[in-house]
């Protein structure tokens, strides 16, 4: 086997300091440094341990329901008349989104470290639900931090978490969304670091989280790559995924990074439009800075204060992004684009009507961009869109926007 130079490039990050080029690192208080060092050691031992991998694969197959299908959206593709679009069906996973791939992995780490309590931050509630689910299965105490605003707009998921036995803590500081939930989770972790494992829900946070969450999510891209070869006899021409913190996107992209013919598009939340400043698109409109333990593109003002974000989807409503995406942007390997609230809503309705698949509002951003992209391509070409989650949790939000009382 020959290893080409670009493959080495992507395998070389993060470095020992957790850096992806100038991004990433470990910007946390001293109290957490020992816990991060311990996690690094445990992860580096277990990630090469055959028994751990078998345990993980077993859970992914029998509990999560993997592999997830790669489904050709024929009616949708026909309606556009351009490239053929395939959907990687992460919505069919247990709990309804890609989040569980990572949660299963981190919960296994927690189990091996003997931690009896897990905490998580959540925006849309999908990561919170996935964490509460695994905690129920393993008999761990579980506390989920969620911004007050998100608790209101994702009420169904809040109740799901409670049914699963988790405590949901309403966060009322700052903008009362995902970033504040993450602040509060960090505060809890620093206080209970001896007995608590912090299950971060995306490829953000201090090293080693961006790396280990990526590794756990790469199952998406590995499967999709093999499925594409099996079903179409070739690699896709383009990949599209929405980017909140960036975990479903990196999970799909990473196994294809060295396939130079495959173009990649990460779709950020354009909110009311980039020009309105009410969006959640740090890669498109932000600048580098430090938040939540890593250096990355952020939405910040001229004093380095983190700005409030807006997105119709709670899971994308975050002012930062995983550091690996910042690096992939700078080196030009991945294109980062936006879809606005109204475009995402249209895509939500369209896929529901034309394919009988109701996507999450987060995912709908990827679908909206894929539709635009497909129209510029030919029927001989294919696109894989990461269908990161199902839309049941968003029904009340959509109904409200459409003026319907359920």
């Amino acid at each position: 086997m020959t290893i080409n130079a670009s493959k080495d490039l992507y395998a070389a990050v993060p470095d020992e300091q957790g850096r992806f080029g100038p991004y990433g690192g470990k910007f946390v208080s001293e109290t957490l440094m020992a816990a991060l060092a311990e996690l690094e050691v445990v992860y580096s031992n277990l990630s090469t341990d055959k028994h751990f991998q078998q345990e993980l694969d077993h859970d992914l197959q029998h509990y999560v329901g993997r592999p997830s299908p790669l489904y050709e959206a024929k009616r949708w593709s026909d309606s556009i008349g351009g490239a053929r679009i395939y959907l990687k069906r992460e919505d069919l996973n247990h709990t309804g989104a890609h989040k569980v791939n990572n949660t299963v992995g981190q919960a296994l780490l927690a189990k091996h470290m003997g931690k009896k309590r897990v905490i998580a931050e959540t925006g849309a509630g999908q990561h919170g639900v996935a964490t509460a689910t695994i905690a129920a299965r393993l008999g761990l105490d579980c506390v989920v931090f969620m911004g007050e605003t998100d608790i209101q707009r994702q009420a169904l998921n809040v109740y799901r978490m409670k049914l699963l036995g988790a405590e949901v803590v309403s966060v009322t500081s700052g903008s009362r969304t995902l970033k504040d939930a993450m602040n509060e989770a960090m505060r809890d972790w620093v206080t209970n670091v001896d007995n608590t494992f912090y299950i971060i829900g995306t490829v953000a946070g201090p090293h080693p989280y961006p790396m280990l969450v990526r590794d756990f999510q790469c199952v998406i891209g590995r499967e999709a790559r093999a499925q594409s070869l099996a079903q179409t006899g070739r690699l896709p021409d383009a990949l599209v995924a929405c980017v909140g913190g960036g975990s479903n996107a990196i999970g799909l992209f990473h196994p294809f990074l060295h396939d130079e013919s495959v173009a990649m598009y990460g779709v950020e939340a354009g909110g009311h439009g980039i020009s309105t400043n009410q969006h959640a698109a740090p890669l498109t409109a932000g600048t580098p800075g430090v938040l939540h333990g890593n250096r990355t593109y952020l939405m910040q003002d001229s004093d380095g204060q983190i700005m409030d974000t807006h997105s119709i989807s709670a899971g994308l409503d975050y002012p930062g992004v995983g550091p690996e995406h910042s690096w992939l942007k700078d080196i030009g390997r991945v294109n980062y684009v936006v879809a606005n609230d109204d475009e995402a809503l249209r895509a939500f309705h369209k896929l529901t009507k034309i394919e009988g698949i109701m996507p999450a509002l987060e995912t709908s951003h990827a679908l909206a961009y894929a539709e635009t992209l497909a129209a510029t391509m030919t029927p001989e070409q294919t696109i894989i869109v990461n269908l990161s989650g199902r839309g049941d949790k968003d029904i009340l939000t959509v109904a409200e926007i459409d003026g319907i009382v359920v």
Partner: protein
Amino acid sequence: MSRIAGRFQQLAAQRRTALIPYIVAGDPSQDATVPLMHRMVESGADIIELGVPFSDPMSEGPVIQQAHERALANGMCLSRVLELVQEFRKSDDTTPLLLMGYANPVMYMGYKAFADAASAAGLDALITVDIPPEEVDDINAQLQRVDMDNIFLVAPTTPEERISRIAAGASGFIYYVSLKGVTGAGHLDMEEVTQRLAAIRRHSQLPLAVGFGIKDADSARAVAAVADGVVVGSALVNAMAQTLADGGNSGQAIEAVASLLGEIRQGIDSAAS
């Protein structure tokens, strides 16, 4: 000699422990900060630690979080904090001043620009909560260029071999975070603090200050018996916030801080004697 080293030397000669109050610049108002600083010096402060407000103060408990939010709502920003430092220096050229904050505002201003502006304003040292030794090289180079101390934190979870590495790069003093938790938490374990300070002393000659969880004269007295400096934050910020919430004006809020600080000073001095 730097103001910080000089102050600790002078206190050591008097066998006294440094009292280091923390307030957030711009809380409760931009105008109140400099008068409050002077009043704290009159009430027994040896060094002043000024919090730089940040939108995401991850290491703070609710009391100081709210102070950060109030200060930002009052239009506080890092360059304005440095202006307040400069204003304070017009009538006090001896009290050491340090800023405590988070990486991002300093990084956004630029380490070089910050070091230049801060040293021109008369600042003595910086503590950034979320820049551990692993990430410190760039900012250290700039602070050293202008002879400013970068104060390192040691936590209850810091292993001893790491303490020795931290001590090797430290200057000014070492700040021991007395508990696992956020500012304002209430579970100070004096036995553990005593043991940990002894461990740090095995690796460093620098003065040791202790912060987080010290809230009154009693806890300050206990810590002063084993440390060279005592940092008090949440209790002062809370005294101010309570006075205002009860309908008091800004002058009364300043006096509430002064009176609590005076009690804590007495507590500390009674430990020394």
